[in-house]
């Protein structure tokens, strides 16, 4: 897949001669709104017509040199081409229905960062101040396709491993006689598989594991600091020591259960629990404790918590609500420690079409985790009964909401909402549908900069978050599956250590093949960030230079 954006000869020649003049000229005609295409309107009172035939059908182009309009209906009736024959050198034009650059000589759409920037400026200004969020100034030169470049580099590193030291090694599987440390069964204390499964995942979440194994939670200072007799961090540290001790007999996390029940009165009872609910509750308790001993709130005006829970799992979600009448967008940010995804039951058939194999018409397709993420970040039209007040219009109008991820956590926990609670029917049911999930997950399409960029037509422009050092590539290390029914099911955790999957079914630890994990019914999936091996300074092939060699000027706010 080529990622170099080399302008055609005609475009480079045009830019050498005319620079940004043409781009600046068309700016006044840009008419934009988010989620819809960007049009160009030369005149507010007349419909656009071809200067040759006065026709208004087909594609219409404005010449960037003389601003004359011409149409292109078919290869036989191409007045735009006629224009280039009459006026030598007038090869670059703008498609007014899409605000896209077109090279008439090459008969192809072409792309230029300065042009995109010009259009973006108009879009930002035209849509009101509500659209400044996420559109930052273009200080450094941006490599738009650097993510794509990274993807192709990582293609060959599919089997990157997560080893005990938190480092990535590409070694072959270690011999059977030597099992990874930290692998130990957990006794079921009576319907406590929900607890065991979550504990196994936490025991192998790299930042968590490193924190507790290096003794960062100090039991003595913990006891002195607060009056609580029960501390889940202390208890979990005991579990870490026991599980990583080398003793392979199954361990009973009884004290942990007791402490948790004492600290979570409302959830304490002998019955099946929801693993996700338990997970959230545990993180909460650990945060509460750590938060007290670590955060002196005065140095944290932004409210960023540095406890182990937040350092490992905390991310930031962005929610944009756009008024469908004026395009004004209001943005809010919310921290999160996991992402709950609705099961997307819409089957993606496009992939079947893309492959040139004959598909049976009865092919039902598979739901995938990435399609659930697509659903999560899809623009959602809010109902007409949910009209929100638009600051720009000063009225209530229908709006569109869109979620995206502003900051990815180090450990990404994805929760598949398999348990449906119907208030109307006062019943809950479990969705058994199989969900495909990748072992390597690229979160690029779901981060705020990608979502906002897409909303503005994927223009070549710097969006907030592009410069982030955080890798968007994640690798799975733990999967919690649920089998059985809502009321009486069983949780099992699959752990991936040194490229080998292990099934942790309460006290029983066994080795399993990839396909067992792939075919299981996932409920919670844990991914850890793959470190960026290729840092800035490399040229991954996208040369977005304006022909005149000028560096990007800052466009904060408006031009």
């Amino acid at each position, binding site marked *: 897949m*080529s990622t170099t954006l080399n302008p055609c000869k005609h475009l480079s020649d045009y830019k050498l001669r005319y620079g940004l003049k043409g781009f600046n000229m068309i700016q006044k005609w840009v008419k934009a709104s988010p989620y819809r295409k960007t049009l160009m309107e030369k005149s507010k009172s007349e419909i656009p017509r071809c200067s040759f035939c006065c026709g208004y059908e087909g594609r219409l182009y404005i010449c960037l040199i003389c601003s004359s309009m011409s149409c292109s209906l078919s290869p036989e009736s191409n007045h735009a081409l006629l224009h280039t024959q009459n006026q030598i050198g007038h090869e670059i034009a703008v498609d007014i229905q899409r605000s896209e650059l077109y090279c008439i000589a090459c008969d192809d759409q072409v792309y230029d960062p300065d042009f995109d920037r010009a259009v973006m400026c108009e879009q930002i200004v035209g849509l009101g101040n509500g659209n400044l969020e996420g559109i930052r100034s273009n200080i450094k030169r941006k490599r738009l396709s650097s993510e794509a470049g990274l993807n192709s580099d990582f293609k060959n590193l599919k089997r990157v491993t997560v080893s005990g030291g938190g480092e990535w090694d590409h070694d072959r599987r270690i011999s059977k006689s030597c099992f990874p440390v930290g692998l130990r069964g957990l006794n079921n204390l009576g*319907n406590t598989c929900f607890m065991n499964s979550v504990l196994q995942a936490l025991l192998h979440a790299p930042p968590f594991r490193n924190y507790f194994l290096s003794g960062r939670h100090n039991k003595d200072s913990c006891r002195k600091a607060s009056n609580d007799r029960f501390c889940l961090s202390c208890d979990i540290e005991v579990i870490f020591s026991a599980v990583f001790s080398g003793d392979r007999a199954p361990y009973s996390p009884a*004290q942990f*259960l007791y402490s948790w029940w004492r600290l979570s009165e409302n959830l304490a009872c002998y019955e099946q629990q929801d693993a996700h609910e338990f997970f959230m509750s545990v993180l909460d308790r650990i945060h509460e404790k750590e938060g007290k001993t670590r955060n002196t709130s005065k140095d944290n005006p932004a409210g960023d918590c540095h406890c182990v829970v937040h350092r490992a799992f905390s991310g930031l979600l962005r929610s944009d609500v756009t008024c469908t009448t004026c395009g004004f967008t209001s943005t809010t940010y919310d921290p999160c420690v996991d992402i709950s995804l609705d099961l997307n039951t819409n089957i993606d058939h496009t992939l079947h079409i893309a492959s040139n194999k004959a598909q049976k018409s009865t092919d039902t397709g598979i739901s995938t985790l990435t399609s659930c993420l697509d659903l999560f970040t899809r623009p959602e039209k809010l109902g007409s009964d949910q009209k929100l007040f638009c600051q720009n219009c000063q009225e209530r109008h229908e709006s569109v909401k869109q979620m995206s991820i502003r900051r990815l956590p180090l450990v990404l926990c994805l929760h598949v909402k398999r348990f449906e609670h119907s208030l109307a029917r006062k019943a809950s049911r479990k969705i058994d549908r199989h969900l495909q999930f990748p072992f390597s997950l690229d979160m690029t399409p779901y981060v705020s900069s990608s979502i906002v960029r897409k909303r503005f037509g994927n223009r070549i422009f710097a969006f907030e978050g592009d410069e982030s050092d955080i890798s968007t590539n994640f690798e799975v290390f733990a999967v919690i599956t649920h089998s059985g029914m809502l009321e009486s099911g069983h949780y099992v955790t699959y752990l991936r250590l040194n490229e080998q999957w292990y099934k942790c079914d309460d006290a029983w630890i066994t080795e399993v093949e990839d396909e067992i994990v792939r*075919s299981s019914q996932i409920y919670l999936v844990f991914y850890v960030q793959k470190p960026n091996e290729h840092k800035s300074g490399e040229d991954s092939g996208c040369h977005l230079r304006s022909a005149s060699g000028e560096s990007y000027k800052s466009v904060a706010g408006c031009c």
Partner: protein
Amino acid sequence: MSSPAENTQLASHLFDELLGSIIMDVSSECHRIARLGLDRNLDDEEEELKLSAQARARVADPSNSEANSKYVVDIFGQTHPPVATEIFDCMNCGRAIVAGRFAPHLEKCMGKGRKARVKSTRSSTAAAAHNR
């Protein structure tokens, strides 16, 4: 006045225009995504789907069924009874409890659940003596 035939022709023509415009919109978007390298790697995604389908097929095959893991030997060569038999002392009341029955015991011991009574006397001493 235009005849019905002319109207039909106009309507058809209008439809063609609209359809053509929509198709152009989609092509233009896809063209941009492809040229700027923003497209997702469809090959990888297809590979993943294929692996997933293969995995499910192989697992569904009855000849491949995985033994019920409660009766197998684990990777360390150990076997375990279905109900955990380790015995330890309850932190609440101090009594010796079998691990596999700890949760139901604890529920009654702590006074939760329907038939529970909070176990008294030794709970405070037991908790104080408990090593933290």
